[in-house]
């Protein structure tokens, strides 16, 4: 059963090599309902990835806590599978074995493992590549493998740290569709870090805005789905974009030029 994810008084302070203290996260408080698609948006170095790593249990907070339902999240675990920005598909395992990894670790019986793996192979359109090595796949296909691996472990919460950042526009758009289909099918809670406002508008129910480690806004994205070009060009979408840009300290003209 899915659980509410709560960030409570979360601080994360790093000590720079020079001895200077850097507040990567400052008193972050918010809750995410089960099944929500949340995009965390902010400039580079403003705490997005740190927030996700704390939630994943890969980075202990300096103060505060993250709760999954009633339980405080501590170390990493299969209940918060993560898709990383960099390529983290195991190159020495076939595509099928990659998707099976979490299931094997969780000692899922072989028959169930095979059935689940086959389901996720089909869901991401890689049935014909089940016995391929990752090196034989394109970047987009490897991201599908990572996505299927994260989905297959059966976690309620999936964390995605700019997973499509290194891909070309067309591949990224295609993967948005794949991800949204999977989300609709599974109703998992998804945390998606991005600095791409358009990507956030396509995907999110909510946009959490971080600036200098602080939560500066929590914007509901109530645009109708699917969010095609017309929806994203609507007045509502443009207004959301303006709010986000203003928080990021960028004018619309600057954003267009960039």
């Amino acid at each position: 059963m899915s659980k509410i994810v709560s960030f409570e008084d979360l601080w994360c302070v790093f000590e720079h090599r020079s001895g200077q203290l850097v507040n990567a996260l400052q008193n972050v408080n918010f809750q995410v309902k089960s099944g929500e698609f949340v995009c965390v948006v902010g400039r580079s170095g403003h705490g997005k990835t740190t927030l996700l790593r704390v939630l994943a249990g890969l980075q202990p907070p300096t103060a505060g806590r993250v709760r999954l339902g009633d339980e405080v999240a501590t170390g990493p675990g299969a209940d918060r599978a993560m898709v990383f920005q960099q390529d983290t598909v195991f190159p020495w395992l076939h595509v099928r074995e990659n998707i099976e990894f979490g299931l094997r670790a969780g000692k899922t019986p072989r028959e169930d493992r095979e059935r689940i793996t086959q389901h996720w192979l089909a869901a991401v359109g890689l049935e014909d590549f089940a016995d391929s090595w990752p090196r034989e796949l394109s970047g987009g296909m490897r991201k599908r493998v990572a996505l299927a691996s994260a989905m297959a472990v059966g976690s309620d919460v999936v964390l995605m740290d700019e997973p499509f950042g290194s891909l070309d526009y067309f591949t990224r758009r295609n993967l948005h569709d794949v991800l949204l289909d999977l989300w609709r099918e599974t109703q998992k809670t998804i945390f998606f870090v991005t600095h791409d406002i358009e990507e956030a508008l396509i995907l999110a129910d909510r946009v959490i805005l971080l600036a200098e480690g602080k939560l500066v806004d929590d914007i509901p994205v109530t645009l109708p789905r699917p969010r095609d070009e017309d929806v994203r060009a609507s007045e509502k979408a443009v207004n959301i974009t303006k709010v986000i840009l203003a928080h990021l300290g960028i004018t619309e003209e600057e954003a267009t030029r960039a």
Partner: protein
Amino acid sequence: MTTTDVLDVRAKARRDKRKRQSLFILYLTLGIAIFLGVWQVLSVWFPLYFPSPLGAVRHFTDNLMTSEWTRRWFAHANACPALIGSGADIPPYCSGYVLHLLVTTRNILIGAALGTILGLAAGLGSLVFPKIAEVFTPVASFFGTAPIFIAAPFFVIWFGVDVALLTTVGLITFYTTLLMYFFSRRAAENIPVGIIESALTLGGTPRSIFRWVYMPGTVPEIAGGFRIALAGAWGLGVLVEVLGIQRGGGFLIAMWRFGVGLVEWPAAVVALITFFGVLAVIVDGILVVGIRFLTRWAESGRRLGL
């Protein structure tokens, strides 16, 4: 592009591949021919130091099964020690090069295998039990900084020249263990942190990460380390025998100091050294085939010569 064009392109790609393979064989043959040619020329100019290639081969085949020279100089030192002092007649083949060379090969391979098992057990085991690294690393670092050839005379003095299994195998095991320990540790350290973190967030336990991440992921570097260790082991094994062991290929090389000045001398020494060179290349070639299979997932494996 029409279907015909695609087929043309594929046919051209196949032709190019065959051409590259043919050129590789051509250059290899050319390289060997030039080497043998230079050797032949040198043998004419400096016959005392460079026997002709054919002369070395002839000496090797003449002495392979039974050797007049071994019997002449070392009637008691042969490749059948069990027969010494038994009262039984020592068969002629005990003096031949073949048994000596087999003894050396066996000792080197046993030492390298034992060292690899111990080194990998300590290196990879320390990933699961970090205490192993805390205990083993300082000791291994201390011995690792000393050139291994310094340890060779120590092993000969300590274990003596009679029991080659302790001296030769012991030294090679010691050397390979150190090397494989460091290679396996380094291989594990070189696995990207992102891969380990990904495994953790997928529910990976220390055991499953060891089995499905560290074990396969470290193969390329460990295999490379094993090739280096084995290449060194050939030299080390022969060196220990040269220092005083009474059997093996190194012993045969050392024995030929009694033949300095004889016409046969350069051919004998060069033949024996060449044998180990060729053997090492053959064993390495077999290893490369095995490593290519184990690292077939790695794109760069073939490019790196693995």
